[in-house]
């Protein structure tokens, strides 16, 4: 597996990376996916909500093994306790079990012919004549040189590989949310088929608290606050603990079964998502909805578009920046005007 040259190497086996890999494999090109973690899908950095429309547009059929709770609407609460209850209609969405969902996406890519390696940390690219030609990766204490004609960086918010190419994926505190979440069991929720969103500067400055039910008294209970407004004693964890303490009617008998944290890129998507033989997708490219901070759907669409453009570029025999820019054009056509309106 390690010694051959691939058409495409994808760094990161999250939703963006696996969508890209599946699409490249469907285009009859060889693809290797590297993930630095020993288990795909964990730890989760996500509230796990997804729109049914997005799954349909990606041709993914919801499966009760990972689409574990059907969502019909959302209830938004103001600081004074008023609430607005909305119905999303027949389409609605799902709360996912992302650990299973990500493995499912990887499985679909593998069934199409993609190869995967886990516990393999790709930190640097190989370069030749100004073109990215593969990656250097650590696997079980050994340094590998893996060659490819295109590298797709889907390595998340802490992306290293794009920076090595010279694409600045950094975030700043003014545009970056500090996130914290408990998955809890034993909640007393009135409506388990709705998302519950709590707003207020005292509850979550420049962000919100969410309760995304997974059914059977379980839910993701999380918070995002603006990074700039985080400080000792007033961090995401502190705000969330205070919120939970102030709602005994929901949380009196609840306990955490998992803790998660993470950073959410809320600024504009990258100016430059491509280089010669190189593409960036998902969180690494700041593909996040700036209103609600959701990223799965934008990331998966980016992965699919990148996979299509990579396949077409390989067919043409032209993997230059100019050729791969088609990915950024299509992505921006689909999302940029929408996102810019929101900002």
């Amino acid at each position, binding site marked *: 597996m390690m010694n051959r040259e691939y058409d495409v190497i994808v760094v990161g086996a999250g939703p963006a990376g696996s969508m890209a890999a599946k699409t490249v494999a469907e285009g009859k090109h060889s693809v290797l996916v590297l993930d630095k973690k020993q288990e795909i899908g964990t730890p989760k950095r996500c509230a796990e909500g997804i729109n049914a429309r997005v799954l349909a547009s990606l041709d993914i059929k919801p499966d009760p093994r990972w689409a574990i709770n059907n969502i019909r609407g959302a209830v938004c609460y103001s600081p004074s306790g008023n609430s607005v209850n909305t119905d999303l209609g027949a389409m609605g969405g799902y709360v996912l079990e992302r650990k299973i969902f990500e493995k499912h996406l990887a499985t679909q890519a593998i069934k199409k012919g993609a190869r995967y390696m886990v516990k393999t*940390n790709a930190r640097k690219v190989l370069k030749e004549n100004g073109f990215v030609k593969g990656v250097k990766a650590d696997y079980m204490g050994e340094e590998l040189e893996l060659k490819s004609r295109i590298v797709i960086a889907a390595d998340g918010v*802490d992306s*290293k590989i794009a920076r090595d190419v010279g694409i600045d994926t950094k*975030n700043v505190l003014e545009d*970056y949310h*500090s996130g914290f979440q408990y998955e809890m069991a034993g909640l007393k929720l009135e409506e388990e088929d709705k998302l519950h969103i709590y707003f207020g500067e005292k509850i979550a400055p420049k962000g919100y608290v969410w309760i995304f039910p997974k059914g059977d008294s379980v839910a993701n209970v999380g918070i995002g606050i603006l990074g700039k407004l985080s400080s000792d004693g007033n961090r995401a964890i502190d705000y969330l603990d205070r919120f939970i303490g102030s709602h005994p009617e929901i949380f009196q008998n609840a306990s955490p079964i998992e803790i*998660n944290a993470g950073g959410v890129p809320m600024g504009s998507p990258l100016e430059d998502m491509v280089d010669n033989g190189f593409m960036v997708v998902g969180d690494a490219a700041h593909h996040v909805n700036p209103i609600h901070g959701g990223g799965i759907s934008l990331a998966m669409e980016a992965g699919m578009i990148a996979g299509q453009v990579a396949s077409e570029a390989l067919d043409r025999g032209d993997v230059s920046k100019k050729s791969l820019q088609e990915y950024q054009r299509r992505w921006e056509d689909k999302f940029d005007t929408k996102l810019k309106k929101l900002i």
Partner: protein
Amino acid sequence: MVASVDRDKCMYCGGCVSICPTDALELMETFIKVDEDTCVGCGSCIRFCPVGALYEKDE
């Protein structure tokens, strides 16, 4: 000063990595690596950390 990680508190989410202006942080599988030669002590990661696992350490 340089940034340092309290490994008992860290959730290894990697959120701090992307706001480091000098690329001094890296998420390995279950820990954050701080390159003390590269860290300029700006404190961005310390402010951001959702759980307060990063702190100032004298060089």
